[in-house]
């Protein structure tokens, strides 16, 4: 076939758009704006009157990258509302599922989206020519994380096996042993990744702005991702049930997404917030990587969120091996195929928080006596970070506007937004920066 004519349409499956506007006149800044223009999704209305066993299925669709995290948060909120007990085995498996997603998402971001910035490449495609072995390493770890999610959840996106009360199917001991071997083998890849990031980390802008970090914490020595209580680096710990006092969402004129604030005018969630609030609970190798890459608490450089994500990848792989050891040591309790956990449906309100790749996620449902949703509230990590991105820009731009040309300012601001790994970053070049001279 000779010629192929293809009409190009706008990409239809983007998760949103973000715009940066810097308005300066003779060196004087008139306006700096981080604008989110994605359309409202109405998921809280979509689940209304739906049955409790469909809530997680529906809210999983909020995000194709964090679908395991949304499912887990949704299930925990439903189980909280109906006092549904989860076995220790299922809790361990759920933690494993969350690690799989954490590695999937962080490697995708650090490896495919952020590293090209540091390597001075437009995207991962030219980087595959200049840094072939490094890109192969990224792809190997990403593939392993996908396999891990598939093994525990049934598939990599929108898990089918996670249901209220447990799992419809669990992996076999042999499958878990096989996964453990692959995780062990990946440690050399993780060290290689750390060394790549270290070699390029000098390109991360040297910018700091003190802010508030919000995440989960706990009284045990577990790095809290699946469970815990709320903690603010400013005000200390509080109960997840009191999240509305901590997360104060508000509407701004420039954005269709809500912003949030707590003790200050903005706060940050995500890997950097978690590492800052729970550094001591990281796995030994993760701490080693953090030290090697110069990530010390408290770190107020938002660009270091990329490094914090890599540290969490190492933690998740190492802790996954521990979880598999625990599961195998205690012996897997077998389940019949297509198992349906017993659930005693009742009315009530349930609130849950889980640390998903981009930060702390809240789901809050009120059910009637038939187990149908009467009210729902989902607070998404990316939205909690919008206010902090805006404040970072307001602090950063005055420092660079005289030193850098427009292209450099644009790249620095794009890298700032990408460092937060917002869910709208479907591609590395989605941002439009408008300068009005």
């Amino acid at each position, binding site marked *: 076939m000779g010629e*192929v004519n293809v*009409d190009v*349409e706008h*990409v*239809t499956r983007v998760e949103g758009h973000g715009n940066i506007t810097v308005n300066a006149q003779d060196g004087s800044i008139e306006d700096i704006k981080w604008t989110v223009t994605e359309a409202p999704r109405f998921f809280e209305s979509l689940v209304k009157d739906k049955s409790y066993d469909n809530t997680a299925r529906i809210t999983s669709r909020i995000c194709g990258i964090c679908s395991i995290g949304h499912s887990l948060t949704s299930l925990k909120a439903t189980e909280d509302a109906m006092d549904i007990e989860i076995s220790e085995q299922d809790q361990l498996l759920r933690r494993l599922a969350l690690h799989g997603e954490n590695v999937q998402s962080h490697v995708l971001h650090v490896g495919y989206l952020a590293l090209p910035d540091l390597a001075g490449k437009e995207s991962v*495609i030219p980087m595959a020519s200049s840094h072939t072995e490094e890109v192969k390493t990224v792809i190997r770890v990403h*593939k392993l994380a996908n396999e891990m999610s598939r093994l525990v959840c049934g598939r990599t996106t929108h898990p089918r096996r996670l249901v209220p009360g447990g799992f419809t199917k669990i992996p076999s001991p042999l499958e878990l042993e096989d996964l453990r071997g692959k995780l062990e083998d990946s440690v050399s890849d993780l060290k290689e990744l750390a060394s790549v990031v270290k070699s390029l980390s000098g390109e991360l802008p040297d910018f700091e702005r003190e802010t508030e970090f919000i995440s989960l914490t706990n009284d045990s020595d577990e790095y809290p991702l699946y469970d815990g209580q709320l903690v603010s680096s400013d005000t200390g710990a509080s109960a997840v049930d009191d999240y509305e006092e901590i997360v104060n969402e508000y509407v701004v004129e420039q954005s269709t997404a809500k912003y949030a604030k707590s003790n200050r005018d903005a706060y940050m969630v995500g890997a950097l917030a978690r590492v800052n609030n729970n550094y001591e609970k990281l796995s030994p190798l993760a701490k080693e990587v953090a030290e090697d890459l110069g990530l010390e608490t408290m770190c107020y450089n938002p660009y270091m969120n990329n490094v914090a994500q890599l540290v969490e990848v190492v933690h998740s792989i190492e802790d996954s091996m521990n979880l598999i050891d625990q599961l195998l040591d205690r012996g897997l309790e077998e389940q019949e195929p297509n198992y349906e956990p017993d659930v005693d449906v009742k009315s009530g309100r349930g609130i849950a928080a889980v640390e998903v790749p981009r930060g702390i996620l809240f789901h809050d449902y009120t059910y009637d006596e038939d187990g149908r949703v009467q009210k729902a509230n989902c607070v998404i990590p990316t939205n909690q970070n919008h206010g902090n991105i805006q404040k970072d820009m307001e602090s950063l731009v005055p420092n660079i506007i005289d030193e850098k040309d427009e292209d450099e300012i644009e790249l620095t601001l794009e890298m700032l937004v990408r460092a937060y790994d917002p869910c709208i970053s479907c591609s590395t070049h989605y941002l439009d920066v408008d300068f009005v001279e």
Partner: protein
Amino acid sequence: MIGILGIGNKLRGDDGIGIVVAQSMKNRDLPSDVEVYEVGSGGLKVLHRLENFEKVILVDSVRFGESPGDYSFFSPEEVKSMKGFSGTHGTDVLEIIELSEKIDKSPEEILILGVQPKSLSLGDDISPVLQDKLSDILDELEKKVNSL
């Protein structure tokens, strides 16, 4: 090994044709060295699948200026010479193929079976005109697989 990878989203009308073709092919009596996968919206899942096969046929909804339901086999090289090829999925399939080549994980041969869509509206089923062509498309795909 030969892989048939169906790409698309069944919630977007004819964008789901790659998935429908993959699902239907699973019911056909294919040679034992042929595996069929639905890879949904594609992206990096395609990358991870490509490395498992010597030959791959990607089935996708592609606008190439023909009538709805028309279909054609073409190679990525033929499309690279054209400007602006892009599926409706977030990641350009051609970029994924290029990436797989650069890291030496690409199959020896890749073909794209492109089917011209009529409608990509949210919530629609596959258009009747594509439904009518489905059996032809499957027959041609089976012939192509057997000839590889």
